């Protein structure tokens, strides 16, 4: 199933159609979407409410099926997979940040992160090591023992980001990650995502209404009525909007962390995560 990695695209969507049915009434959500996202991109999906952003993210993230078309993610044909294959695909390839209710309520922040590592087959100790690492990475190291309901919305989202990255995914999909946050917290979260993108070269695809999110985009993709309307529009890389306020110090740790992760996982890297991805422009 894995195709030779001869392009830089990590997500390729071709003529994607998806219709929801309510009774016998069809509600077309995606009307022939064509899209390609390169490795290491930091892209934002914009569009009005109901334009199909969530649906597209769900299909790319192997959460939902589609009616027609082709979706290749990290060399794998998502639409041809059965249920279990999709679950495993998500586990090993995709990190998710949802709008809300991201975390498992009965687990602490640290355990939430360790949980996905355990799903990947790591033992408890190893998982906890990775959880601690990522908690520090999102500046939540001191609150790792707290349960989600003891954390603010912004803190919860940071933990969710840490969890999304802890499995060493190729892609992070975030559906309106700032929608439940105040402006400043939202900006700080976006700043964090950008920095992680810089540092680890993970591909980010984020949907949002939020102008701040759109500003942060290094590439903006606009959807309307289930179609990409402004195709491949690249906006010039804006400097991180509030870079001075960024809580994350630009640690020179990137290389060391990647090494650490590679050693820990001992998983063959098929993503071409070869050193820090140069910032795209």
């Amino acid at each position, binding site marked *: 199933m894995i195709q030779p990695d001869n392009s830089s695209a990590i997500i390729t969507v071709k003529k994607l159609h998806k219709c929801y049915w309510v009774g016998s009434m069809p509600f077309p959500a995606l009307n022939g979407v064509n899209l390609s996202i390169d490795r290491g991109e930091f892209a934002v999906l914009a569009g009005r409410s109901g334009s199909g952003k969530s649906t597209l993210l769900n299909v790319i993230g192997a959460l939902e099926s589609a009616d027609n078309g082709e979706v290749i993610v990290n060399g*794998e044909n998502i639409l041809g997979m059965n249920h279990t294959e999709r679950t*495993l695909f998500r586990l090993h390839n995709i990190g998710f940040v949802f709008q809300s209710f991201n975390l498992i309520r009965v687990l602490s922040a640290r355990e939430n992160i360790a949980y996905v590592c355990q799903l*990947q087959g790591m033992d408890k100790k190893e998982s906890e090591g990775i959880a601690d690492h990522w908690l520090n990475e999102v500046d939540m190291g001191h609150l790792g023992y707290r349960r989600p309901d003891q954390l603010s919305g912004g803190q919860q989202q940071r933990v969710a980001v840490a969890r999304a990255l802890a499995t060493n995914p190729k892609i992070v999909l975030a559906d*309106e990650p700032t929608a439940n946050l105040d402006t400043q917290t939202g900006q700080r979260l976006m700043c964090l995502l950008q920095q992680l993108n810089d540092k680890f070269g993970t591909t980010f695809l984020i949907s949002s209404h939020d102008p701040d999110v759109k500003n942060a985009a290094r590439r903006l993709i606009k959807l309307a009525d289930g179609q990409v309307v402004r195709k491949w529009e690249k906006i010039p890389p804006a400097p991180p909007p509030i870079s001075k306020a960024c809580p994350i110090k630009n640690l020179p740790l990137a290389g060391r962390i990647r090494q650490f992760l590679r050693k820990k996982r001992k998983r063959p890297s098929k993503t071409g995560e070869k050193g820090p991805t140069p910032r795209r422009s």
Partner: protein
Amino acid sequence: MSNAKRLSLTAYLSLALRNLLRNPRRTGITLATMIFGIATLTLLSALNDGWLEQMRDNFILSFTGHIQIHASGFESSQNLNDHIKAPGEVILLLQDSPEIQGWTQRIRTSGLVSLGGSSAGVQIMATDPEQETWVTHMHRGLKQGRWLNPGTSHDLLLGITVAQNIGAEIGDRIVLMAQRPNGEMVSEIFFLRGILETGAPQIDRTLALIPLNAAQAWFEMGESVTDIVIRASSHENTASLQLQFNRKLSGGGYEILAWQDLDPMVRQWLEFSDAYGLIIILVVVALVLTEILNTMLIALHERQKELGIMIAIGTRKSQIFFMLLIEAVMLILLGGALGYGVGGLLVLHLSDGGIDLSYFANAFKFFYMDPVILPLLTLDSATRILGTTLVAALLAGLYPAWRATKIEISQSLRTF
């Protein structure tokens, strides 16, 4: 890609435990229902078992014994002609068997007692006075006077109601009248030596007890008897003993009857009580099942979104299923153990003095019951209660766990 990894059992257990503690009040109420249900069940079942055993033992020990051997046809004809001519052959089989606690020989026939102007129909029973005490507790029911002397003495014991009906007192000369095997009506004078109250009204109302040898002489029956009555050393031996005798005595013109065959009404009553016990179990189990099902379904509903997230980030459906099932099983095991524990303590407490139902004693006497019921915990009922509860509760846990695997992620994430 297909490296399907397992979560460790401790991870499941810890998740399940925390999910149970997530809503302590609800879990507490569910547990309380289970404890109450299973404790009640244990108690009712122990009462039922205690009562059944009492009734069975009373029935066996008041008169019938575990097994009776007759000449073929005697049980239905009750005719002295159908008697065992050579009881020695049978008695040889009884001696030294470790499965037998005691045996006696009897002659039973119907007759009449009269004293002065009054008379009453009776069941004349002649027995070996000494052997009888190994088989039944009849001698313990002596209200007045003394037990029969062995030999051919003309001692007579009467059931208390018979004695009252004809106004007999200890020492009275009483005329007994009956038919010999050849049909000849004969009468004989006996002396009332004792009055018996067995606790079973149908016996107290009809019993006229005389020594076996006296009866054999009176009826000119030689060595012959109508019944050989056997008490097994343990109740559980009854069936195997009956089988043995059937084999060894087959073709000799005998009928070998176990206590259940001797009074169909008692057997039916025991069977009914058993079925009744089962109905109680089913009702309580249904209650417990509904409660667990309810708790789990509500919990499932509340956690729909979270379960959706768990599936989205890579938890397999089998893992979700297992997680919820473990939750249910933990709840069940805890509730089951506590419930049975509380029930057991209640039973222990009550079995000290028993439950005194003397108020209803008259109704109970017909069923060979004591007015004080001693509840009884048996391995049988424990297995039945715990087994049924476990199976039922497991079913109640399986359904929500299965439902959880049907969660559509896209639906549950639609704030997404």
